[in-house]
C-alpha cells in the first residue's frame, strides 16, 4: 500500500514544490509554493474541478439508480436470465477509447444516427457535441452506458447475500413488496451501495480517456476534467511541476468531497448498517 500508493503521492508532493518543465530543461528547481499559488488563482483549475465534480456526481447518481433497477431485475428468476446477465456486462468489458470513438460517430453531425433521427423528426441539426451547455451530458450518457453494469454487478452480488426466508417472513406478516424493498433490501444492500459509490466516484473523478477521445475537453473547454488538464500540462506542455500540483490539488478536493459525503451519511444515520 505504501509502495504503490504512498510513494507516487509523496513524489507528486515533492514535484509540486518544484519548477520542472521544458523551461528548466526538465531539471527540477525548487520554487517554494509558486505552483500552489498559481493553482489557487488558476481559474481553469477551479472550472475543471467543478466540471469534474458535476460529471462524477451526475453520472454516478444516474448509474446507481439504473443499476439498482437492473440488479433487482436480474435477481428475479426468469427464463434466459443467465444470458442476459452476461450480456449486460458487455459495455463494461469494452475498451473505453473504442466506446468513446463509437459515441463520437453516433453524435456526429450530420451523419450520426442521432442527427439522422432528429432530422427525420424535423428537429434540425442538434449539434450536441458543439453546445457547451449540453455536451457534458453526452459524456455523462457515455459513462452511464459503460459503467452501469459494474454497479449492477456489485449490487447483484449484494442482493444474493440476502436470504430468501427474510422476504418470506415479511410476506407472512402482511408486508407488500414495496415495503420489503424499503425495509429489507435497501438496508441490507447499503454496504454494497456505498462500496460501489466509492469505487465509481473515485473513478469518475479521474475520468480521462472517455473525455479525451469523445470531446478532447471541448467545446470551449466545457468538458475538460482535472485529469485531462493534468495530462495536458505534463504531456503537451512538458510542465511536470504544475501537472503534479493539479493532480494533487484534485486529490485533495476529492478527499474533501468524500469526507463531506461520509459526514452527511453519518449524520443522517444511513451509515449505521455498515457498523453492525
Amino acid at each position, binding site marked *: 500500500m505504501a509502495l504503490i500508493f504512498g510513494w507516487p503521492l509523496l513524489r507528486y508532493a515533492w514535484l509540486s514544490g518544484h519548477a520542472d518543465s521544458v523551461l528548466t530543461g526538465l531539471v527540477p528547481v525548487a520554487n517554494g509554493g509558486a505552483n500552489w499559488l498559481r493553482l489557487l488563482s488558476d481559474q481553469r483549475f477551479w472550472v475543471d474541478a467543478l466540471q469534474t465534480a458535476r460529471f462524477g456526481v451526475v453520472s454516478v447518481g444516474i448509474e446507481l439508480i439504473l443499476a439498482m433497477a437492473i440488479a433487482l431485475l436480474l435477481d428475479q428468476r426468469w427464463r434466459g436470465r443467465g444470458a442476459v446477465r452476461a450480456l449486460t456486462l458487455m459495455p463494461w468489458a469494452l475498451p473505453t477509447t473504442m466506446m468513446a470513438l463509437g459515441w463520437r460517430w453516433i453524435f456526429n453531425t*450530420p451523419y450520426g444516427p442521432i442527427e439522422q433521427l432528429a432530422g427525420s423528426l424535423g428537429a434540425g*441539426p442538434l449539434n450536441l457535441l458543439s453546445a457547451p451547455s449540453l455536451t457534458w451530458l453526452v459524456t455523462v450518457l457515455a459513462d452511464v452506458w459503460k459503467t452501469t453494469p459494474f454497479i449492477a454487478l456489485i449490487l447483484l452480488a449484494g442482493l444474493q447475500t440476502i436470504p430468501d426466508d427474510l422476504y418470506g417472513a415479511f410476506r407472512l406478516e402482511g408486508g407488500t413488496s414495496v415495503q420489503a424493498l424499503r425495509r429489507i433490501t435497501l438496508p441490507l444492500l447499503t454496504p454494497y451501495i456505498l462500496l460501489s459509490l466509492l469505487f465509481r466516484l473515485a473513478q469518475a473523478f479521474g475520468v480521462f480517456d472517455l473525455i479525451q477521445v469523445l470531446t478532447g475537453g471541448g467545446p*470551449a473547454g466545457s468538458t475538460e476534467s482535472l485529469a485531462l488538464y493534468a495530462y495536458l500540462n505534463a504531456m503537451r506542455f512538458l510542465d511536470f511541476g504544475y501537472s503534479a500540483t493539479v493532480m494533487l490539488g484534485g486529490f485533495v478536493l476529492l478527499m474533501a468531497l468524500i469526507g463531506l459525503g461520509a459526514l452527511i451519511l453519518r449524520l443522517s444515520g444511513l451509515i449505521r448498517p455498515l457498523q453492525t
Partner: protein
Amino acid sequence: MRNALRCLVAVLSTVFVLAGFAWSSGNRLTPVPVSILMPAPFADASKELVNRFNREHQGKIELTINRGPLETESISDLAISSLLLGDAPFDALMMDVTWLPKYVAAGWLEPLDRWFDSSDSEQLVQGARLGNRFENHLYRWPLVADVGVLYWRTDLMDVPPSTPDQLRSVALNLVQSSRVANGFVWQGRQYEGLSCDFVEVLHGFGGAWMSADQASTTLDTPAAKKAAAWLDSLIRDGASPRAVTNYAETESLQAFKAGDAAMMRNWPYAWAELQKPDSAVRGKVGITLMPAEQGEKPAATLGSWGISLLRESPHPEETVEAIRFLTSETSQRERFLDYGYTPTAEALFTDPELLAVSSALPDVRRALNHAVPRPPTPIYAQLSDVLQRQLNGLFTSGGSATETMDEAQIRSETLIRSAGGMA
C-alpha cells in the same frame, strides 16, 4: 535426364554453399542497429525502403522502424514517455513541426548541422525548408512536406474564391440556392487543427500570431479580430455548418467526399482520398490557397514531418545515413507514387512521372511557397491551447470576436511572462 538432374544438384549445392558463406560472413560482422520511431502510416509506407536499405548495408547497418500509433498526439505521448525514461529505445524520431522547439529545450535532440549543409537545403521546396531549425541549429530533416490548402468543387464554381468575402458569398449562395448542403467545411473543434486554420485566415487578413521580433503575441490586432469575426460569421450566417465547431480533418473530409460541401480546408493528403472510386466528388475537385484580402498574401499553415536525431543515440553516423536514405529523392519519389506523400525535393514537383499521377502537385507546390509556420517556441502547445479554447468558445458560446481576441492576447501574455519570455 539423369545428366540434367545431376546438373541441378550441382547448381543447388553450389548455391547452398555460397549462401552458407554469405551467412557466416554476415554473422562475423555484427551490423550496427539503428531504430527510428514513426507514426504507423509512415512506418507502413517505409517497409520496402527499409528492406532495400538493409540489403544495401548488409553487415553494416540494420535499420528497424518502430511502428508507433496513428495519431499525432499519441505518437508524441509515446515518444515523450520513452524520452523521459532516459534510455530511449530508438536513435531517431519522426517529428511534427510544432514539437521541435519543445524537444530542443528539453535537451533531447542532437543538431544535424554536421551532416546537412546549405547545398542540401537548396534542393528542398520552399515550404520544406521551414520548421527544421531552432536557435540557429538544424534539428530535423524533412521527410514529407505539408501545408494547409483550400479544396473547391469544380462543378459548383468556375474559379475558386480568392478573398474571404468572396468565399463567404459563394458558400452562402450555393447553400441558399440548395445546390449543396454545406458551403465551407473546416476544422473548428477545440484542438490543434483549429489553430492551423486560424493562422491561414489571420495572415489572409494581414495579421500574424507573433510580433515580428517574436517577443510577444499579436492576437488583439484589428486583423486578428477581423479573422476571428469572419470565421464566426461563417457559422452564424450558415456559410459553414454549425457542426464544424466539432470537426477535425476526418469529419471535414467525410462531408466533402460525400459531396455535401462546396469547399474544404484540409491538407494535401485528402486529394488521394477524394480521387478514390467511393468518392462522390472524384474528378470534380480543385486545390488552391486559402483566401486573403486584396493586397494581402495568402498563407498556408506549415505542417510537415521530419526525422530528428536523438542525443542519446549511440550511433549517430549510421542513423544519419538511414535518415539520408529515407529522405532521399528516390525514396520521396517512391513514397509519393505508392502512398501519395508530398515530396520535399523541388525537382520532383516538375517530374512528369509524378505529375501524371497527381495533377494537384503544382497547386500544392504553390501553397508550399506560401507556407507560414506556427510560432516556434517551447511553449507553443500552451499558446495554441489558449487560442483554441478562446476561438472555440466564440463559435460555440457566442460573445464578440473583439473580446475573444483581447482575452486570448491577455492569456498569451500571462503565459509568456510566466515563462520568462519566449526563450
